[in-house]
């Protein structure tokens, strides 16, 4: 199997896009495993899909609008209790803009 589809830099770039911190050892492992997996996907290129519409959903699901009525929301205290860092009634986060 082609294990060269992805380079080390490719994997680092994808991990950055996915906001996933992985160490050098993981980068090497993922490069090898993901290249191997992607190689199996190349068989799809054999199929002629010219003009075939893509399927996103298998049922006739369409955009559903509900009536604009208020409904019960999650209880604030129990919801905030799950947040790792809380300040009063707010969730606390690290600085976004330095």
């Amino acid at each position, binding site marked *: 199997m082609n294990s060269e589809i992805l380079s080390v830099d490719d994997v680092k770039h994808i991990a950055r896009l996915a906001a996933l911190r992985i160490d050098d050892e993981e980068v090497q492992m993922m490069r090898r495993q993901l290249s191997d997996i992607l190689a199996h996907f190349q068989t799809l290129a054999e199929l002629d899909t010219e003009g075939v519409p893509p399927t996103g959903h298998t049922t006739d699901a369409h955009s559903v609008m509900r009536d604009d009525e208020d409904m019960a929301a999650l209880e604030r205290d129990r919801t905030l209790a799950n*947040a790792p860092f809380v300040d009063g009634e707010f969730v606390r986060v690290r*600085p976004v803009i330095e």
Partner: protein
Amino acid sequence: MSVASETQTSARDLRAKYLNGETTARDVALAHLQRIKEVEPRTHAFLTVLDEEDVVAQAQAADQRLENGTASALTGVPFLIKDNISTEGVRTTAASRILDGYIPPFDATVVSRLKEAGAIILGKGNLDEFAMGSSNENSAFTPVVNPWGENRVPGGSSGGAAAAVAAGEAVIALGSDTGGSIRQPASLCGVVGFKPTYGTVSRFGLIAFGSSLDQIGPIARTVADCADTVNTISGLDPLDSTSLDHKLDFAEYLGRDIDGMRIGVPREYIVDGIEPGVRAAFEKSLTVLEGLGAIVEETSLPLTDHALAVYYIIAPSEASANLSRFDGVKYGMSVDGEPNARESIEATRGSGFGAEVKRRILIGTYALSAGYYDAYYKKAQQVRTLIRREFHDAFQKFDVIATPTSPTVAFELGEKTQDPFQMYLSDVCTIPVNIAGLPGISVPCGLSEGLPVGLQILAPQLGDRTALQVAHAYEQSANWNLTPPEPCTD
């Protein structure tokens, strides 16, 4: 009555015993807690067992309903809920470190409906992290062991659900099925697993993996119990915009004969790696169906060979988007001490997710990224259309399609963990169903070298009742619903 007779039972038999006063929901609930204590040291099917006090309170409420005539089919029936389904006030982890300590402030719709029906919830079931896996070895906590063999996997991702039902720790379990996660473990543990048509059961409160593929369904000892469960949990839900406005009676066709039923057997499902014992059990099951009057014919679904690639592009793509919500800000674990939000999120996700989840997030991110979208994601969605058309054409000729559920029996722990693609191949017979949004059910159809084999019956969308009818007719005739050899304990 012995613990075994109260724990290795179907819900329908249990209900008969409740109604004729032979036992009570309280006694049955306590028998299950006892059974869980005995076998959990070996199976690890539960991630959370509810306190005895809580379970007894649910059972007593069920006993009251049984007495005053307000009981439903599931009143007093002990359930396990897969731990990627939200339960109000009860830890829900999806078997991931990143959800450490998460206590949902709400119930999934399926859980609310079970509670309204008077079911007893015993606890939460182990699974592959975020339902990504085929052996349960991707649980961040501990792998589940198959009650049929001490070094065998239960399948996945609903491995805890299937193992618990097989071992008599619960009468019914709710699982989720994105590419076979209900049917494959049911097959490997010798129980029945049913994935209804996409959209029949609300996904609200299910921790999302692949939203266009995910579907909640039951694992039980009988086809009838699966039908009764889906009758309770299905139906339109305003909280899930993809839930369908169809209310079928899933038990309606149970007991009808299958004389003249046309059953297609696609040759592509007899894959290269199929074990001879699995093939023999499957072929014998076709003889049984013929004996019941069904017309069994070989057919071909050539695109089956491409289903795996389609699935392993679409599911990870959807997963990479769904799992972006786990950022260590609103719930779950969080790595502290990073200089800014971006670094904090990257560090949390890097240490909170396991290897398989990372692989899928990376595959999905790549398939959706600029320059690769057309070659991977769009291409996979187009082939998805072709696979749906192929099934559509097949169902013009056949009422149902029969296949093996899995090409192998339960494999050994550690056998496939080194090669992710080999693990993916375990789902080769179950994945096409999710790609096309079809209903599929796995029923036990014999043993190969002492381990269970499953027969899978597929039907067109909303043909669930026909799939259940055929599975039920087979089950009644073949009677392969066996309990694993004791002891399930160490």
